[in-house]
């Protein structure tokens, strides 16, 4: 499949000399949701800004829909919708005016029926004639999404879409993103919230210090880097791990009432059977057992520590 966005050896150095992007290579495929994770200042927004035309690349190339973002900027920008991180709106305008303005700016003929649909999709139809300054933060965020969708883009960039948004609204936003994807829109989102990437993305890219450290399918990433833990609730507490088990990756928790075994899901043998055999030999009884998988957050922290 041809990528809808293809980034090749992209570098960006700001005038002050700060190199925000270092040799970025990334292909994004039609219809996928890719999450770019990274700490503040990692280069996520710079990457998005460069693809969308707000920042100028220092070297390298980017194509969107097979067209070059500099040479064929009209074609590429028509395909892209951008929801910025900051809630930047024309406070004195109304949602109706501003969303129609966006559509015109992107070169599309007025289509009031479509704009009505977009405003209804983001639950702002009732507020269409209110001044934007009277809207809540969550409404403004949805308004920015409506503006980005006003020209029917094929690729949507969401820069920190749920920053400062309450839990309920965040879930609504996720549903909206899923609906958009069902309509064939490719979505690139940046986020701090691992939960968000875990919930929404098909693929995850991790950026740190202007470099893409890793891009993986979410499931593969979780599996590859994910460690599983077997947690045993003991009937009698242990004061120390018995000698015969010392070689195993074990630790005691809850004053010796819990024994935790960490194992690699990718290994040929998990070692669980031999551990249980060893426990029986040592007459250690347990009342319950459970397994937990490390979250994307733990994986992320681990990756950043390695970077």
């Amino acid at each position, binding site marked *: 499949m041809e990528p809808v966005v293809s980034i090749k050896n992209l570098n960006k150095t*700001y*005038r002050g000399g700060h190199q925000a992007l270092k040799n970025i290579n990334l292909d994004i495929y039609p219809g996928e949701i890719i999450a770019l994770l990274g700490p503040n200042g990692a280069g996520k927004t710079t990457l998005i*800004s460069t693809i*969308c*035309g*707000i*920042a*100028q690349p220092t070297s390298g190339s980017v194509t969107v829909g097979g067209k070059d973002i500099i040479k064929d*900027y*009209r*074609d590429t*920008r*028509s395909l*892209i919708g*951008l929801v*910025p991180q*900051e809630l*930047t*709106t*024309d*406070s*004195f305008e109304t949602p109706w*005016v501003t969303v*129609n*303005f*966006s*559509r*015109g*700016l*992107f*070169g*599309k*003929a*007025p289509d009031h029926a479509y704009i009505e649909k977009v405003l209804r999709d983001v639950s702002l139809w009732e507020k269409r004639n209110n001044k934007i300054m009277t809207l809540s933060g969550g409404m403004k965020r949805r308004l920015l999404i409506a*503006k980005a969708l006003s020209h029917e883009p094929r690729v949507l960039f969401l820069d920190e879409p749920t920053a400062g948004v309450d839990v309920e609204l965040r879930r609504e936003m996720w549903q909206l993103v899923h609906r958009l994807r069902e309509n064939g829109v490719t979505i690139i989102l940046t986020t701090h919230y691992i939960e968000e990437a875990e919930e929404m993305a098909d693929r995850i890219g991790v950026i740190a210090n202007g470099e893409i450290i890793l891009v993986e399918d979410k499931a593969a990433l979780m599996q590859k880097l994910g460690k599983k833990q077997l947690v045993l609730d003991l009937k009698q507490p242990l004061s120390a791990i018995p000698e015969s088990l010392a070689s195993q990756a074990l630790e005691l928790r809850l004053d010796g009432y819990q024994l935790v075994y960490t194992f690699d899901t990718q290994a040929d043998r998990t070692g669980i059977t031999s551990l249980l055999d060893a426990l029986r030999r040592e007459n250690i009884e347990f009342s319950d057992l459970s397994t937990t998988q490390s979250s994307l957050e733990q994986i992320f922290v681990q990756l950043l520590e390695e970077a």
Partner: protein
Amino acid sequence: MNIHAIKAIYKFEMARTGRTLLQSVVAPVISTSLYFVVFGSAIGSRITEVEGISYGAFLVPGLIMLSLLTQSVSNAAFGIYFPKFTGTIYELLSAPVSMIEALIGYVGAAATKSIMLGLIILATATFFVDVRIAHPMLMLVFLILTGITFSLFGFIIGIWADNFEKLQLIPLLIVTPLVFLGGSFYSVSMLPPVWQTITLMNPVTYLVSGFRWSFYEIADVSLWISLGMIGVFLLACLLVVGWIFRTGYHLRS
């Protein structure tokens, strides 16, 4: 050409005028009326005629120029500065809009507003004095060319400015003094010879002079020099705007 974008920007900017009607139309009309009262009536009683024209009528082209220049500059400067200030400029920069199209939208709207204002002031003036326009078409040419040129100048200031102080700096410290000292309220020939020479170094003198000629066929300098000066201004502004667009100065990081 992204015609829809030009229309969208133009309409958006014109709608802003509608919202700020008091500030953008009523205020200049009131201040013009005050000029007529102060200059026309008070001073006009001492200076009855300038080159055969009543002082009140003589003032009209200068007053229109005063508003045209200051309003063109401030409208266009504010129009492009405000989205930079609020951050909404991201949308323009990420849209399939060439800088020429953005320019036509913003400068076109700013020029339209100031030209309309010029005509409103002209209409207001007819309540106070007897205005006659010898060459209406030429008058319109001056009005439109000056409106466009100074809107371009304002656009440049709006892009250059990175705070509200800078936005006001050039209009207040340069444009207004040049207009006042450019023969808006007097004929250059009324000045002592030294000041006449100095006044001729003021580019606005040529605009006011040519504009006044289209009304009363009296001028401080030749009509062709006046038209030539507007051409030079226009070209200078276009060159600077071209440079801004090539380099992305203060727009794209």
